[in-house]
């Protein structure tokens, strides 16, 4: 199938016939790309089958699309509640991450102060430390401070563990802004805070948007801390709710698939809406990191 696609697209771009090497390379890349989405396409259309139809032939397309699986999955997972919990935690965490990384990133880019290198190193350390080793001590800590099992519980680790990369991204972005702008603002009598919020913040909107989108994914998808810090069923996030749903209803595959599709819907929409910005954000983060 990949090969055909390639052959079709060739004549329009090039007059002469493509070389075998070119064909092979393109076929390989298309195969790679296809392997990244075929499993998802499979659960996509399988979620529209009845259980009997799925058991009969797992590869065939649904004869008549069934949306009953989705209705059932929404009801059984309590998907609306899960989504609300996830959205609340994610949005507040992302706002916190963006605000803190803007201020910290701006200051590290522009000011020299005692302990700056140590602070940068301290934040970098967070990218390497095996956070999942800390599930136990974090749980004990949160329990001692009565911070576990609250609607805001997850916001704390989600902000903390997602600061390292955003601070670096903001910092390197700010370094690219000419200093003259701030000097002019200072001459006009604007204070440090005034310059930061009124001059730099609007300029930094693109990088802050990138930070916000990237951290949205990591907060929305987080599982381990939600697993450990939340016992209250009404506070569960989407990934957590899905894992309980899976263990309780593991035999009805089309229904499970419908639940999976529902749970990936927000990130899928955001990803395809902003994919070019996300990809350039990841790439610039990669160069700086």
């Amino acid at each position, binding site marked *: 199938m990949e090969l055909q696609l390639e052959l079709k697209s060739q004549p329009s771009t090039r007059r002469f016939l493509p070389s075998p090497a070119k064909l092979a390379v*393109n076929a390989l890349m298309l195969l790679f790309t296809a392997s990244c989405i075929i499993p998802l396409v499979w659960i996509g259309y399988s979620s529209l089958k009845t259980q009997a139809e799925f058991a009969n032939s797992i590869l065939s397309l649904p004869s008549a699309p069934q949306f009953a699986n989705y209705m059932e999955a929404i009801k059984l997972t309590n998907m609306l509640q899960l989504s609300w919990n996830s959205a609340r935690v994610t949005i507040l965490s992302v706002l916190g991450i963006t605000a803190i990384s803007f201020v910290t990133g701006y200051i590290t880019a*522009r000011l020299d*102060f005692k302990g700056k290198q140590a602070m940068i190193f301290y934040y970098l350390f967070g990218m390497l430390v095996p956070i999942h080793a800390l599930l136990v001590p974090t*749980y004990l800590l949160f329990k001692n401070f009565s911070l576990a099992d609250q609607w805001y519980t997850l916001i704390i680790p989600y902000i903390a563990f997602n600061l390292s990369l955003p601070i670096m991204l903001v910092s390197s972005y700010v370094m690219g802004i000419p200093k003259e702008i701030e*000097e002019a603002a200072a001459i006009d009598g604007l204070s440090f805070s005034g310059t930061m919020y009124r001059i730099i913040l609007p300029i930094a909107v693109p990088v802050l948007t990138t930070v916000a989108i990237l951290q949205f*994914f990591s907060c929305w998808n987080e599982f381990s801390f939600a697993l450990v810090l939340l016992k209250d069923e009404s506070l569960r996030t989407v990934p957590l709710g899905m894992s309980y749903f899976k263990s309780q209803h593991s035999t009805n*595959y089309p229904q499970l698939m419908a639940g999976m599709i529902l749970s990936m819907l927000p990130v899928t929409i955001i990803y395809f809406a902003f994919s070019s910005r996300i990809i350039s954000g*990841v790439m610039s983060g990669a160069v700086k990191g």
Partner: protein
Amino acid sequence: MGKALRPKSWVLLAYLLPGLLIYSFVVLVPILAALRDSFYSWTGGPKKTYIGIENYKEILQDHVFWHSFLNNVLMTVYGLIGQVGLAFVFALLLMSKMVKLKGLHRTMSYFPSTLAPVIIAFLWMLIYNYNYGLLNAGLTKLGLGSFVQSWLDLTGPIVLLASIPLSWQNIGFFTLLMLAGLSSINKEVLEVAELDGATGIRKAWYIIIPLAKPTLVVASLLCIANNMRGFEHIYALTGGGPGNSSSVMALYAYETSFLRFRYGYGSALAIAIIALTMLMILLSTLALQRRRHQKGDVY
């Protein structure tokens, strides 16, 4: 920057403090607390008994823990091949003029990275499923019915099978990382090399790989850090099973604490995991950097 823009130090502190506080509370304080608790025998109740380094002695003899550690190492090796290695090849191909639809490849291959690890694990559980799995169905379709089996019950290659979803999810990210690194290579160097007759594989081997070394080092370190702390995929895909065969360190620490209520020992495990991970990262940094210096001498 001029003196005029320098804020008073209390203003500076006020700006930096919220971030540092919340970060310390979740990153530093738990490490210190775990260090303290690791010297106690403690089941979570009010009674804590100081036992010195007994927990650490037990770790040294704990076969399950060391088996989990080896699994982490094995996953790291698979990750370096399946994520960093393959991603480098794909990035090289995507850099070449031969490949069409580059935007499509980039967009689609990164998409799995944005999905929750739990969902990735469920997806692969369905792929590996004996009766209804995509893998067995594919094998049957290809006439390879004799290979059909209950994949996740195989104790032998279970770590490899569990590593495949991880690679599948992360390869897009590493491809982007490599592309970023490769695109920062000076174009003129590549053009001169081409004029001198270095094309295709020779260009990649003699020119691009040495120049891309810093990117490869960063990617490898990230990959090591990722795999040493792997938890979610394994938790959701195999739960460490069959038996303990696919257990990883973080999963074992989790089970020790939350299922067997050995908080003291669990804390000691947490410290051991951090120490081992840092050691691995340090050793690999040293190894990779030394090689880079040697190469640097040649040029």
